[in-house]
């Protein structure tokens, strides 16, 4: 692995950092409170080419590698965790599976709109009775001449309220168990498709999270993504990639917390000294910095594995996601601690970071599920 970034990766990092600091960070506190989806920011992200980072130029993307994608997600999340997830879902959970498993017509039809921000992407895996256990899903798709009829509901869908293009998983043959799951591309205005309950979340509050409801929803046959029965494979393959970006998101949130904590510790005076002079505070700062750096390396490493064409990197992706999420909760907790009572208020951003961090241990496979993946790969 190259520990040193290439020229274009460094430039991307610097430019996205500047963009995120100037354009995203200032509105992050507002949208956290209002829960309003940051539509204006999405336009700006699109202009910079941040909605289709790994998509080839011919489909309207920026054609960068997965390390660059991780760097971009880190920098965006450092300024605004909500915008970070929105971007990650658009990139690695929608454009990626279409790019990897879609046919030429599907790529030409959907990728340019996803890259330009004309349509936002979302993915529907989770259901009320199927979270960690993906194969327990109940949504079905039945072929009726040249259409599939979808019935069921998806829950907790990021970007749901705003998205125009959804990748949705459903059973085409329940008897085949997970080999009977198939992936579909569903457009927002398809008859029989509606939005259900909007979630009121603890953190990442501006991500348009809602339920998707399919009632005899009729989608054209050609919207089948990949092959019949390939859905579970597509899902796992996509999650391997997107977990890297959740790791990157965790690193970004953690870095923001550390930056704030460092700044505050130099300003806050107790017992006649700035608190950064106290060993116990330095201790926390050193632990935080080390955890973040280690997490970043794991994220880069997993992304690098993907770029290097290594076939099996489930372990590396799970390690990156599990570890970064884990330390993110710890690092943001320490940041609140360093701020004392002020950290508990909305006058400073660290309480938001703390709330934003918790989801990282839950979505795209809980930490427990990551550990199962890691342990199975190690003991294999």
């Amino acid at each position, binding site marked *: 692995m190259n520990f040193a970034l290439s020229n*274009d990766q460094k430039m*991307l990092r610097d430019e996205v950092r500047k963009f995120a600091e100037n354009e995203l960070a200032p509105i992050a506190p507002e949208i956290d409170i209002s829960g309003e989806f940051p539509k204006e920011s999405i336009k700006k992200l699109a*202009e910079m080419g*941040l909605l289709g980072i790994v998509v080839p*130029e011919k489909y309207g993307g920026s054609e960068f590698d997965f390390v660059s994608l991780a760097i971009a997600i880190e920098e965006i999340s450092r300024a605004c965790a909500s915008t970070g997830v929105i971007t990650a879902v658009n990139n690695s959970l929608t454009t990626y599976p279409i790019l990897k498993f879609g046919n030429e017509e599907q790529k030409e039809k959907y990728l340019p709109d996803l890259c330009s921000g004309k349509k936002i992407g979302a993915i529907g895996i989770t259901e009320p009775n199927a979270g960690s256990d993906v194969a327990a899903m109940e949504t079905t798709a039945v072929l009726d001449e040249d259409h599939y009829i979808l019935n069921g509901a998806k829950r907790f869908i990021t970007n749901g309220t705003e998205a125009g293009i959804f990748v949705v998983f459903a059973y085409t043959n329940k008897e085949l168990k997970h080999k009977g799951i198939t992936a579909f591309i569903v457009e927002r205005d398809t008859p029989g498709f509606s939005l259900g309950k909007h979630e009121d979340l603890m953190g990442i509050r501006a991500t348009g999270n809602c339920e998707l409801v399919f009632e005899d929803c009729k989608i054209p046959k050609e919207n089948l993504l990949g092959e019949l029965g390939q859905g579970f494979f597509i899902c796992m393959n996509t999650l391997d990639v997107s977990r890297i970006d959740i790791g990157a998101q965790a690193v970004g949130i953690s870095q923001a917390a550390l930056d704030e904590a460092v700044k505050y510790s130099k300003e806050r005076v107790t017992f006649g000294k700035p608190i950064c002079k106290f060993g116990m505070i330095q201790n926390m700062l050193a632990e935080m910095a080390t955890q973040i750096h280690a997490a970043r390396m794991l994220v880069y490493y997993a992304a690098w594995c993907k770029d290097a064409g290594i076939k099996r990197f489930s372990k590396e992706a799970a390690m990156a996601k599990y570890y970064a999420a884990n330390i993110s909760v710890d690092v943001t907790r320490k940041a609140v601690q360093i701020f004392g009572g002020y950290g508990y208020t909305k006058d400073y951003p660290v309480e938001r970071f703390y709330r934003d961090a918790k989801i990282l241990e839950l979505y795209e496979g809980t930490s427990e599920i990551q550990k199962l993946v890691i342990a199975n790969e190690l003991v294999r």
Partner: protein
Amino acid sequence: MDIIVCIKRVPQTAEAEVSIDSTGKSIQKDRLTFDMNESDTYALEEAVLLKEKFEGNITVLSLGYPDTDDTLRIALAKGADNAIRIKAENFENPDAFQTAQILKSVIKTINFDIILTGCIATDDAYSQIGVTLAELLEIPHAALVIKVDANEQRTHVHRELEEGLIEHLDIKLPALLTILTGINEPRYASLIAIRRAAKKEIQQLGKENIELEDLVINSVIEELYVPPVTKQVEILTGSPSETATKLAGIVKEKGLI
């Protein structure tokens, strides 16, 4: 319209703690981050806007150390066509005049209609390079420009003076303008532009590659120091209404209102 933009890579000192290095003539730079000088980013954006209107070629030019390439590459990503770095390592701490002399020696080999520079570099704060360069090139100039309205032969500019006064000037090209921050909204480089720029060559000019007149030594830095702190803070105590009354009294007494 061919445009040259002079760019400097400077330490970002707004939020950092700055300390003097062991020579006593410069600041400690190893922990600072560096970026394009602020007003240069506006000069570059103005150049790109002109190019969008009139077509032509933008050359960005910097006298800097090797890591200046990073800054020039971002300029390429934002719309410049060529980038030249003059190797600072070949010169010994040039002052403002010498810097202008060095820039001139390169600029005279390039075709241009307009030269844009930032109005001030946030590190040395000389505010002289642009105007000196114009004098050395014997072309007209306008400093502190806040609006540019050009055609192919002439440009109309607004200069912002003290007390919010605006001066309108009409200048014949070729000319040099030093650009104020706020004149436009500098764009971000798109990812595609970054990828293309990352591959571009940056021309490297050493002392041996340029025809230089004798550098005139006008000034040398003798010492850089942090002024001693003189205690002037007065902390007002009491209830909010008491402190407000005291504060109002002081403000009046000092003739501030």
